[in-house]
């Protein structure tokens, strides 16, 4: 395919791959980036929220030309039962700042922009090329990749595995395990197009302001999962994701789940009259800290979703992806600058750097959360939302029943559903996992 030898091959052009390829090329390394899609972004799916801080550390002036949708001024959390939602929301004019902290983006458009930056920095980007396996020498050191192109073997000192959540190449090469069904969520999403004025009126926005809604409750039918509604300029991105193991056990279908979410009385008016232009689905790493595979070895590093780096509680993934891609590239650059070989020992610098960053610190904080939400899914996603809804409605409905009697009835409904021990246990478990 190409006779040249590269300093680094980056497999994949998502957030992590682009961050790595850009950072490596920017520092003068000879970089080849391979992407199986028709163009960079063709296979990438995200809600999506962009976190400015992590991109600024790679491309400080990104706001000048990046395709950004809306900067976020408001976040809503909804606990839903079939006919209601109990909400908490935070909105602040402080988020209308010169350099906003979070934006909604449309991934395909954003990734095309990012890919152009990678090319401008000097990397060779080749699309429509699927990497089929890693080339390893007799000692197991990764020395390049095989692709589905004619004579498709290419060699490099180091391979950056930014292949995404599935981790196919890493699994095939024996560098890691395949993600387990209870450690990944399947999210499906749709793009609902509406005139920008309609979106602004429905969500109480002006100009480029945006809102994010995160929703949990009976919408996931007792499975561990979450729904989301993001406002873009002229479309609303809406979706819902649940653990693959829960889909497997319950026989629920992703398309029924998203349709029911759309028909919920709290959601339907927001998207009424819209035109759907795309249906996509994607896996999300949900195993947290305990599901992270080995991140480096002889001749390779693993970044982004491939490394299962996703903060399921805060719904953050792309920032962890960008940061891991950048740190892996900086580590490779340091090893290269010292003229040292790309051995596991030398590349362990990447692990040290990521351990010292917010990425591992945040994931460590919530390490017990995925297991808790999974084992207690019926309580957290069905029972409690229903109880909260009932209590809220009783609190608000005026019907001549004395308030003291209502309060007692609400309390009794919680205790009879979960018992005192159950309630106390859930509270302690939640508090422990949150620490």
């Amino acid at each position, binding site marked *: 395919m190409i006779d040249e030898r590269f300093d680094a091959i980056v497999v994949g052009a998502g957030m992590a791959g682009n961050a790595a390829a850009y950072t490596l090329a920017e520092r003068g390394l000879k970089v080849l980036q391979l992407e199986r*899609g028709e163009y960079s972004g063709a*296979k990438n*799916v995200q809600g999506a929220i962009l976190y400015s801080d992590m991109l600024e550390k790679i491309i400080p002036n990104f706001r000048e030309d990046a395709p950004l949708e809306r900067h976020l001024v408001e976040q809503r959390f909804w606990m839903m039962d079939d006919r209601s939602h109990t909400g908490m929301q935070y909105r602040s004019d402080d988020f209308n700042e010169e350099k906003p902290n979070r934006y909604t983006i449309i991934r395909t458009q954003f990734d095309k922009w990012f890919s152009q930056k990678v090319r401008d920095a000097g990397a060779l980007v080749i699309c429509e090329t699927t990497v089929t396996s890693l080339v390893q020498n007799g000692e197991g050191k990764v020395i390049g990749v095989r692709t589905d192109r004619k004579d498709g073997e290419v060699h490099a000192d180091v391979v950056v595995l930014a292949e995404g959540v599935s981790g196919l190449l890493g699994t095939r090469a024996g560098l890691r395990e*395949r993600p387990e069904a209870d450690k990944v969520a399947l999210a499906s999403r749709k793009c609902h197009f509406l005139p920008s004025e309609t979106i602004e009126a429905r969500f109480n926005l002006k100009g480029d302001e945006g809102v994010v809604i995160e929703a949990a409750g009976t919408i996931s039918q007792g499975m561990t999962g979450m729904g989301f509604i993001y406002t873009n300029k002229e479309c609303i991105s809406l979706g819902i994701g649940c653990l693959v193991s829960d889909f497997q056990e319950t026989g629920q279908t992703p*398309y029924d789940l998203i349709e029911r979410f759309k028909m919920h009385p709290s959601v339907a008016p927001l998207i009424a009259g819209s035109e759907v232009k795309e249906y996509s*689905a994607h896996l999300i790493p949900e195993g947290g800290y305990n599901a992270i595979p080995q991140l480096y070895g002889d001749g390779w590093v693993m970044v982004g979703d491939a490394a299962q780096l996703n903060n399921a509680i805060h719904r953050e993934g792309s920032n962890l992806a960008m940061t891991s891609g950048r740190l892996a590239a900086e580590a490779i650059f340091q090893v290269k600058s010292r003229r040292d070989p790309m051995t596991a020992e030398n590349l362990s610098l990447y692990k040290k750097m990521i351990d010292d960053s917010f990425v591992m610190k945040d994931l460590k904080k919530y390490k017990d959360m995925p297991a808790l939400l999974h084992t207690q899914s019926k309580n957290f996603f069905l029972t409690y939302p229903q109880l909260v809804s009932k209590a809220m409605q009783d609190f608000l409905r005026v019907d001549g029943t004395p308030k003291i009697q209502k309060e007692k009835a609400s309390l009794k409904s919680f205790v009879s559903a979960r018992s005192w021990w159950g309630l106390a246990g859930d509270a302690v478990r939640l508090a422990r996992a949150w620490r």
Partner: protein
Amino acid sequence: MTDLSVRVEDKLYQNRYQVDSGKVHIKVREHDKPSGPLRALLTACPARCYELNDKGQVEITADGCIECGTCRIIGEASGDIEWNYPRGGYGISFKFG
């Protein structure tokens, strides 16, 4: 929920594909009766690529595949399916992602 399920074809109709005719990227192992994982694929696949044929066996039509990888997670370990990415440049091309 049949009235909802039929709409999955409509959803896929909105998507853009480059179909690699004659080359399938996912294969189902031959079987008489579907295993547990194969039965799960009938409902878990978001593009409803897996369906029962008239002999009660699970078949795949991968043309509408949105390449999420769920079937690999469910069905590869048991050997029920053989999973690959489509050839470079083929399969789904998301416009929005």
